[in-house]
Structure formats: structure tokens, C-alpha cells
């Protein structure tokens, strides 16, 4: 029982460290791609310390509770995701629960933004929800393909069966789903080609318009957790989720750097272009993957 409690405490802390490191790394890599030095690796930590000391402005109780719900939702998803062998709560619900709890974060952000009473926020939230509808279609196809392929809805079994039968990314029907998941990864993370919902130029950073000191710090922490969750889900489902956390971290690093290189050089999509792209190629790939797994299964 003690190791279980230890794991429950350890995995969010690890996720926070990895997420914040990825944020710092992202700014450094993007800077290097732009031929400039870029901030020190611990710049996000400095930003957060400053933000915590800065005064802040609140628009009402829902404005605070929504943000707290969104951050708590992201942390709870981390508890359900196995990180190497640390898998605190993965037994109680499997992929369906992960899919649904990933819903808490945008809902919390939308509620707190809604009370901010600013049209920039409302436009940002409506774009964020349209984008989430956009990338949900291929994401669901991918998850259903994995679930029907391994005939289970528990993520631990998916990881353990990959130990034996090799990575899902290489096995025949699932490499299509893996590819399509990788194509929609920037949309899930809200990175450059798809950061329509928090576009600084058009809608002055969307839902984060009214976030001041500690609110902005909590929002960046929540973004770090979402970064960790999406990549950890990809590694667990398609790269076999390693035995010990270090290999798991290395796999995540590789996936993240690849995703970042795409992100650094792309201009931002308009929301219609993003939806058209998301519903065309990734959905086609994932659909074919699902049909093949269905054919093999029956």
C-alpha cells in the first residue's frame, strides 16, 4: 500500500518537472531554429516565481474555481496515466476514463474564461472547442482501433501486451493509427500550427486575456501538464511505455522534439483550415487503420 501512496504523490511531481522542462526546452529549441540564443532553460520557472509574487485580478468565484478545476483535472489525468512502472490509479477506469477526464481541463478553462466577460475570451473558447471537436474525430478513431486491436479498455493491458508483441507503432494495422495520432499531436497540445485558440495577435491570447499573476502561473502549469499527458499517452499506446521512467522520458523527449520541429516553422492555421486538415488526412488514416483492425479481429 505504501508504494501505491508513494506513486500517487510521485507521479504528478514528476509530470510537473518533465512538463516545465519541456516548456523551457520548447522555447530554447524554437529560438535556436530562429537563429537566436533564446532564454535560459529555467526561464519558465523564473516566470512562474515572478507571476506568483505579482498581484492579480479576479472576475468572480467561477473565474477562480474554473481555473482550479482545470488544473486539478489535468493532474488527475496524470494519475491515471502509467509513467514507466509508476501507474498509481490506472486500474480504475482505463482509456475511457482517461478520455473523459481529459475533458475536465478545457471545460474548467472555458467556465473560468466565460466569467472573464470579454469577447476575446469567448472567441478563444469557441475556437478551442471547435478545434477539440476537430481533433477528437481522429483521436477517437485511433483509441478505438487500439482498444479493438488489444480487446481491452485498460491501458495497463495495452502496455503489457506491447511488451510481448512489440511496439504498436510497428505492428501492421496500428502504424496507421500511430501516424495519424502523431499528425494531430500539435492540435492536442495547442502548438503553433493549431494555436488558434490562444493566438496573441488575433484575439490577444484568447482565454488567457484576463489572467494576471497567479492565474497565469496556474495556466502555464496546466499547459505543462497537458504537454506531458498528450505525449505520455502517445508513448504508452504506441511506443510500448518503457519499464523504468528514464527510458519512458527519453521516448517522450524524442516525440516532443519531432513535434516541436514541425511547430516552429509553421504559420498559424485559420480555424476552418485547421478543421479541414484535421478531418481529412489524419481521419482517413485512422479510419483505414480501424477498418483493418476490425477485419483482422472478426
Amino acid at each position, binding site marked *: 500500500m505504501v508504494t501505491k501512496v508513494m506513486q500517487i504523490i510521485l507521479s504528478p511531481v514528476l509530470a510537473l518537472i518533465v512538463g516545465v522542462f519541456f516548456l523551457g526546452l520548447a522555447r530554447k529549441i524554437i529560438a535556436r531554429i530562429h537563429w*537566436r540564443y*533564446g532564454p535560459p532553460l529555467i526561464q519558465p520557472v*523564473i*516566470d512562474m516565481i515572478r507571476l506568483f509574487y*505579482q498581484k492579480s485580478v479576479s472576475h468572480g468565484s467561477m473565474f477562480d474555481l474554473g481555473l482550479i478545476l482545470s488544473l486539478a483535472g489535468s493532474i488527475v489525468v496524470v494519475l491515471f496515466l502509467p509513467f514507466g512502472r509508476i501507474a498509481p490509479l490506472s486500474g480504475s477506469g482505463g482509456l475511457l476514463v482517461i478520455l473523459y477526464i481529459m475533458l475536465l481541463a478545457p471545460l474548467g478553462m472555458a467556465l473560468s474564461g466565460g466569467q472573464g466577460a470579454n469577447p476575446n475570451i469567448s472567441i478563444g473558447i469557441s475556437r478551442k472547442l471547435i478545434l477539440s471537436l476537430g481533433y477528437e474525430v481522429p483521436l477517437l478513431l485511433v483509441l478505438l482501433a487500439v482498444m479493438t486491436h488489444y480487446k481491452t479498455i485498460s491501458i495497463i493491458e495495452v502496455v503489457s501486451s506491447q511488451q510481448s508483441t512489440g511496439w504498436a507503432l510497428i505492428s501492421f494495422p496500428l502504424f496507421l493509427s500511430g501516424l495519424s495520432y502523431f499528425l494531430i499531436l500539435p492540435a492536442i497540445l495547442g502548438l503553433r500550427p493549431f494555436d488558434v485558440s490562444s493566438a496573441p495577435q488575433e484575439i490577444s491570447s484568447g482565454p488567457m486575456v484576463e489572467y494576471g499573476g497567479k492565474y497565469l502561473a496556474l495556466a502555464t502549469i496546466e499547459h505543462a501538464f497537458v504537454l506531458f499527458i498528450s505525449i505520455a499517452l502517445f508513448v504508452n499506446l504506441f511506443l510500448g511505455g518503457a519499464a523504468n521512467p528514464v527510458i519512458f522520458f527519453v521516448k517522450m523527449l524524442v516525440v516532443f522534439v519531432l513535434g516541436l520541429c514541425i511547430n516552429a516553422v509553421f504559420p498559424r492555421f485559420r480555424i476552418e483550415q485547421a478543421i479541414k486538415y484535421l478531418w481529412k488526412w489524419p481521419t482517413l488514416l485512422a479510419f483505414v487503420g480501424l477498418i483493418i483492425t476490425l477485419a483482422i479481429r472478426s
Partner: protein
Amino acid sequence: MDRNQIAKWFKEPAKMANKYSLHAIYFCTGCGIIEVPPVITSRWDAERFGVIPVATPRQANLFLITGYVSVKTLRAIIRTYEQMLEPKYTVGFGSCPINGGMYWDSYNTIKHLDKYIPIDGWIAGCMPRPEAIFIAVIHLWTLIDKDMATGYIKYRENYKSYRRNQEMALGELEWPPLFPVSDEPRGNEQ
């Protein structure tokens, strides 16, 4: 990050964090705005100093006023400054915000921006080059270190006179006063 820097970090993290993470919001008032893009992009890269442009005053703590201030723009500048969160610093570019510069006798420009909102740092030069802007940032660091960048505290304590000046220059203001301007001197601070 040599030894005494780390000691400083532990002694007063707030001040150090304020120094090395200045999120700037800049107001495209006058001709100085053309200097800002090279500063924040690859050629001169302000991000090395932790200065990144942000979209809204709520997320910012550095306010760059780049160039002459017309009477109509002063209204927006005051509104933006009041929406920023403390601790906040302002830097004026060029001589026009200092004393009106070459528009010293124009009926439509604000001569001494210092009368309406506190300015922590000035950069001389009829639109300073990016290097001058970095020197200003370094200068602002030392000011923060020595607790001399106290524009926002001055604004809070002398809000009555600032508000009176603003109303003299702009006539009636649509938004309520930031701090209560009633007669007793010490209103509750923000």
C-alpha cells in the same frame, strides 16, 4: 549564475524573478514602434534577457511607450497602465514623452508624460537603437535591484494628484478611479 547570484535568489526571489522575467507590452504610439520588432526577433533577440512581448496588460509588468503621445492616445495609455498588475514598470522611448520633443509647442501632444503616469526609465535618442533598448533593460535591472523603480508605488500614493492631472488634460474620464480618491489620504491599496 555565479555564487552570489544564487544567494541573492534565495534572499529575495521576488525581486530577482521580477528582474529576469519582464513581460513587455508596448504601445504603438509614435515612431518608436519600428524599433521594437528587430528587438524581439532574431537580429537582436530580447528573449535572452527574459523580455517577451505579451498580448494584454494583465499579463505584463513592463510598459514600453514608444514615441510622442497625442492627447487621444493618452486616454488609452492611462487605461492600459491602470489595467497592469503591480509591480509594473514603464520605459519611455525618445525625447517626445520626456518634454514633448520636437512637438514642444503643438496643441495636440502631451508634453510631460510624467505628469500623468509614473515613468521609471527614459531612453534618449530620437528613436533609440535596439542596443540602447537593451542598455535600458540592464539599467532597469539595477533600478529594481536598488528598489528605485518605484513608479507604481508613487502612482498608488499620489493617485489623487495623478487623477487630477489626467482630468485636467483629458476632461471627464469614463472609468472610475483606480484607488478611492475620497478625502482621507490612505485608501486601501490595490
